[in-house]
């Protein structure tokens, strides 16, 4: 390898790492603003924040092509932003406005942008896992090489739909990546209290499926593992189960306490010390990719983008009353 080629590769790496840092920071600042807006009553209903888990969505989506499918549970603000929905359109949807990415009809749990392959946030735990396999089924049926990444939490592993789907995805060799974000708690229930098998990767053995256990606090390991899974899906049409261990710094939803009685404050603080954004920023500072001034500038730029999103959402109109009856059926 020549010195020039190595340098080009290093530059590409540095660009990718900076992009991932920026994306994680965007999610963090967006979610912080969403929390503020929720407290002000601008956002209603359930609002599940992604703070602490940013490395999972960002690392995984960095391994995808633009035309690949992503489908998520209701904790999907982060993936929606990274799949290319603007902060304006996501925030407006949280505000229930006509300019939202689902026209104000979906809200926080049902963000969609079909043109970008973002096939929704879905509100029934585990209910969207077969949908992810179905998208992969369609891709394979049509002779395309799009893959689908299906994000779900560890609590969904106790749902029948998870097992039924993994079985069929393996039997039919579907190009789907089942990405389990193990943040340890299904709402307020620790996984080990309700699961006989706590190493979720082991479930893959039952379905003769490739699997990997991944550190979800490190965006680069998430990226690498997802890349391997995507390659397996795209080239060989084989599914993969990824168990990505992460941690949610906030409560289950905005209506829940930060740590409550199901976990200790100390545990939350201990996990915050593993903050995925601090981790990557530190690494990039150490290797000279970014300095504090550039990091501050990046943060300021993102803050401005998020402020603008709140302003946009706030000033956007509610849906017209007639919208109540549209989109129930296509003509």
């Amino acid at each position, binding site marked *: 390898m020549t010195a020039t080629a190595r340098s080009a590769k290093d530059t590409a790496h540095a660009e990718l790492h900076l992009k991932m840092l920026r994306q994680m920071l965007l999610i963090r600042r967006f979610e912080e603003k969403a929390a503020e807006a929720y407290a002000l009553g601008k956002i209603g209903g359930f609002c599940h924040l992604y703070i602490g888990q940013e490395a999972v969505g960002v690392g995984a989506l960095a391994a995808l092509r633009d035309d690949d*499918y992503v*489908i998520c549970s209701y904790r999907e603000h982060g993936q929606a932003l990274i799949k290319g929905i603007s902060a304006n359109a996501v925030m407006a949807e949280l505000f229930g406005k006509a300019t*939202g*990415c*689902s*026209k*104000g*009809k*979906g809200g926080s749990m*049902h963000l*969609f*942008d*079909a*043109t970008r392959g973002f*096939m*929704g946030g*879905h*509100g*029934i735990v585990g*209910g*969207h*896992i*077969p*949908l*992810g*396999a*179905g*998208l*992969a*089924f*369609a*891709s394979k*049926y*049509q002779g395309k090489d799009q893959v689908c990444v299906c994000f779900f939490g560890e609590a969904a592993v106790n749902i*029948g*739909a998870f097992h*039924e*789907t993994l*079985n*069929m995805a393996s*039997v*039919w060799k579907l190009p789907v990546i089942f990405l389990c974000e193990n943040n340890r708690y299904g709402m307020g229930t620790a996984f080990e209290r309700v699961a006989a098998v706590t190493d979720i990767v082991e479930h893959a053995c039952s379905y003769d499926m490739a699997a990997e256990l991944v550190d979800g606090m490190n965006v680069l390991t998430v990226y690498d593992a997802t890349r391997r899974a995507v390659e397996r899906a795209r080239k060989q049409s084989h599914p993969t189960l990824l168990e990505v261990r992460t941690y949610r710094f906030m409560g289950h939803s905005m209506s829940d306490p930060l740590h409550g009685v199901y976990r200790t404050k100390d545990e939350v603080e201990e996990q915050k010390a593993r903050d995925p954004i601090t981790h990557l920023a530190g690494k990039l500072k150490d290797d000279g990719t970014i300095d504090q001034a550039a990091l501050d500038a990046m943060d300021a730029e993102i803050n401005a983008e998020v402020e603008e999103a709140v302003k946009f959402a706030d000033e956007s109109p509610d849906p017209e009353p007639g919208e109540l009856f*549209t*989109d*129930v*059926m*296509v003509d």
Partner: protein
Amino acid sequence: MATLTYRDALNQALREEMQRDPNVFLMGEEVGVYQGAYKVSRGLLEEFGPQRVVDTPIAELGFAGIGVGAAMGGLRPVIEFMTWNFAVLALDQIVNSAAKMLYMSGGQIPMPIVFRGPNGAALQLSSQHSQAWESWVGHIPGLKVVAPATPADAKGLLKSAIRDNNPVIVLEGEMLYNMKGDVPDGEHIVPIGRADIKREGNDVTLVCHSKTVTVALKAAEQLAEQDVSAEVLDLRSIRPLDEAAILESVRKTNRAVVVEEGWPHAGIGAQVVDIIQRDAFDDLDAPVQRVTQADVPMPYNKVLERAAKASPEKVVAAARRVLYLDS
């Protein structure tokens, strides 16, 4: 025009639609190698191959959801349930995913999917295998629901369902698969949402659908022997309901009996009665009567089962009540 069984009419609709559109595929338990639990898919695996006639494990929730995902990806799945009794396991996907996808995505994701299979009681299958689900699925906005009563309607409605860009529930009568009737060849489409008068009459309207059309037609014959002219109105479609056809018939006869296989509480008949009382109150000469399954789980015993089901005798008795013939 050919004489076909209801089963073969459905088979013809599936075959023609699969020939017409390569995005249409059939998925379900025993649809391929076994040729269908009720032989509705006979010959399709041979003609279209395993990619388009997909045998599934016994996992209704899972394969219904994979169907929904495939529709999101641009295909037109036909999901067969071995019976609607098993489809109850898949209701999360039918109700929460298929019916709501278009709405909660703000109109971005249409859902061209068909869920079909046998519905209603057969003979002596006891409680868990003898149920009529139309009021359950008919309750859900975002779904269309059809329940054909004849081979011709079975073909025409299934073809409409497969071509529809919305999720359509096709409730096939489990006891109707062997029924024979004339079926137009080729392009025979029955639009969803249109009722059909199966027998004209002037004295009383018998509103019915699916298997109860046969029951109502037999009742109409018996009533004719008693000098009562009954009109048999086959709803064909449960959602949308053909309100105009119901009202037109009731305005002519001034009396109605609603017959269904389901239970009485919150049944389809309750919805039909609501339409009649609201929009044809002044045309009525008697309160509307309903004939349903008894409000109990279906018993196994033959005598008890017969007593539980809607029958021509019960319909005749109800018709005589609305005509004040038995005081």
